């Protein structure tokens, strides 16, 4: 559990969900400098289904990691929900992630020792949500992803699609401002992938959260509100697919 020390999405509803200003990221691997992001400046608006696309090695995942505050830029200014993440200590950054950002991973990354219910419940526990409210929100989330009857199943007792649904429920149960999904359909068959995309789309519309995807999946890209094409660590193209 943690104290609420960072800003909530409600603090800055007017600005974009994410704001990059001359952001660069260089990795120093034992003296070998690798530039992952050269210098990008763009905004990802709130309440949108945004896709970051590009070839492998272009810097998509790095951008997603920066937005998710699990990595920090080496230059420039990055604001997430109006918060300059460079100004936060490691602990404050952790708390900020806990309150504002959720992840949906390609490999689901559910905690294997927890049941579906406990996996969804866990982020609320970290936020210090009272037990009764936790119970209600967790069950509501499991029902919305159609897995209420699987609540006591461990991840190894679930199919890939069910795991990803639990992961989505886990991401959204805390009502984050930004949901980051790195290739969320890569490990699913096309039919299950389509179901998961529709599920995320529906939840995005219901919760008004900002979804940012890193993907190659044309099926997923076809649902984009906005597309950011990254090439060689730079923003090559920004397309608005659907008007806000």
């Amino acid at each position, binding site marked *: 559990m*943690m104290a609420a020390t960072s800003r909530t999405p409600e603090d800055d509803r007017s600005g974009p969900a994410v704001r990059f200003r001359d952001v660069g990221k260089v990795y120093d691997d034992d003296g070998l400098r690798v530039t992952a992001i050269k210098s990008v400046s763009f905004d990802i608006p709130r309440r949108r289904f945004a896709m970051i696309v590009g070839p492998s090695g272009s810097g998509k995942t790095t951008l997603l*990691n920066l937005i*998710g505050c*699990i*990595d920090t830029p080496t230059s420039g200014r990055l604001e997430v929900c109006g918060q300059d993440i460079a100004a936060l200590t*490691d*602990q404050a950054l*952790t*708390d900020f*992630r*806990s*309150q504002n950002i*959720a*992840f949906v*991973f390609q*490999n689901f*990354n559910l*905690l*294997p*020792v*927890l049941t579906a219910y*406990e996996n969804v419940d*866990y*982020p609320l*526990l*970290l*936020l210090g949500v009272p037990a009764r409210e936790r119970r209600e929100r967790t069950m509501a989330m499991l029902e919305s992803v159609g897995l209420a009857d699987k609540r006591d199943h461990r991840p190894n007792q679930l199919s890939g699609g069910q795991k990803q649904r639990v992961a989505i429920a*886990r991401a959204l149960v805390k009502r984050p401002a930004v949901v980051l999904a790195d290739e969320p359909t890569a490990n699913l068959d096309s039919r299950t992938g389509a179901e998961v995309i529709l599920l995320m789309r529906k939840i995005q519309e219901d919760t008004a959260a900002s979804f940012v995807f890193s993907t190659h999946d044309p099926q997923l890209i076809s649902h984009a509100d906005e597309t950011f094409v990254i090439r060689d660590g730079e923003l090559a193209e920004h397309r608005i697919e659907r008007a806000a």
Partner: protein
Amino acid sequence: MLFTIAFRNILRNKRRSLMTLLAIAVGGIALVLFGEFVAFVKVGLETNAVQNVGHLTVYRTGYFDYGAGNPAAFGIGNYEQVARAIAADPEIEPTLNLVTPTVSLTGIAGNFDIDASKTFLGTGYVPSDRDRMLRWDEHGVSRHRVFGDSGVLGLCEKLKIADCPPRPSLTSATATTSAPADLPSLAAEGDATSDLHGDAPRLDLLAATASGAPNVMSLYVSHAEPQGARELDENVVVMNFSLAQKLLYGRGERKAVGLVLQLHHTADIEPVRARLTQLFKDHNWDLEVRDFAEREPFYRQAVGMFNAIFLFISLIMGVIVLFTVVNTMGMSVVERTNEIGTSRAMGVRRGGIRQLFVAEGAMLGALGATAGVLAGQALATLFNRMGATWTPPGQAAPRPLEVLTSDVHGLLLGAWIGLVVMATVAAVVPANRAAQLKVVDALRHI
């Protein structure tokens, strides 16, 4: 939730966790068994010492350090008054088993029937009090005293001691079968009851009185007790208190060299010592108090040695547990790197990760220690039923080899806590490593 996750993580790799628990449990069994053996030895030594010299002995000030060479000069003249005051003291009385006078002296013991003599260390006790002292058994570890060996003065055959080695016949020209003419006459004064003793072997004891004059008394030997050391077996003579008094003080004032206090419980030593000191101060008596550990250095040395061995074994067990848990938790961190990254991405602080792994170490320790302590107690009970024997330090004859399974709550709790603490401490290093992982790197880990 922390403990739920920790416990389930322990169950994930059952074989590895089982091996870790086994290592901790074996450590626990070793600590419990050896600790209970040490406890048994300690109470055995304590019982032996208390039976022989009581818990506390009151001396004239200075006797303990300087008086052994001249016990007559350091006698307590009003010992009966002091004994009555001690026995009547309302604070001491409930704790007191008995208070009895004693006399210590040295001299030469002779058995002129076989032309043998030997220096002796004599102690005089009131026989009935001596019997009561020998029945003291606070810890329930005392066994029937084995009577035996006393060959130097040729008493072995007459006392009908089992396995008595045959005494070689002496053909020396100096051998004689009669005592020097003056000794029987000197001894006759204290030997008016010789007819009562039948064919019991007789010893003639020669000692110097307080005034320095030689004094001779005869005594009839009822039995021999092994003392645990050959030097003592060949030198110690325990005799009637009044006889010892006569021998040491002759026709002068009859004193006691010490007043022995035997308490019901050893734990009462310090309060009683404090009360005695106050009592002597109130009465202006120039007396001091020594406990059995001071009187019997062997007790302290043996206890110290066993404590040192126990500490050494504890350290070895602790190190084994430490490395086992470090290895287990280290492997667990590597295997769960991706989960650590996921948890951190979700908002678990570094401290939360650290707590999780430390909790797992503590749980492994608690489970293993519980199993070890319980198994140790069970094995100790089984061992006690095997009927093994040994000759403990300070003893001359074999005794049952047992471990103390009662009144060892402190040992069991200490072993349990020690193992849990060791396992918890062992988890700290892997836990720190897990907490310091970079989220991005951890998530990339396959």
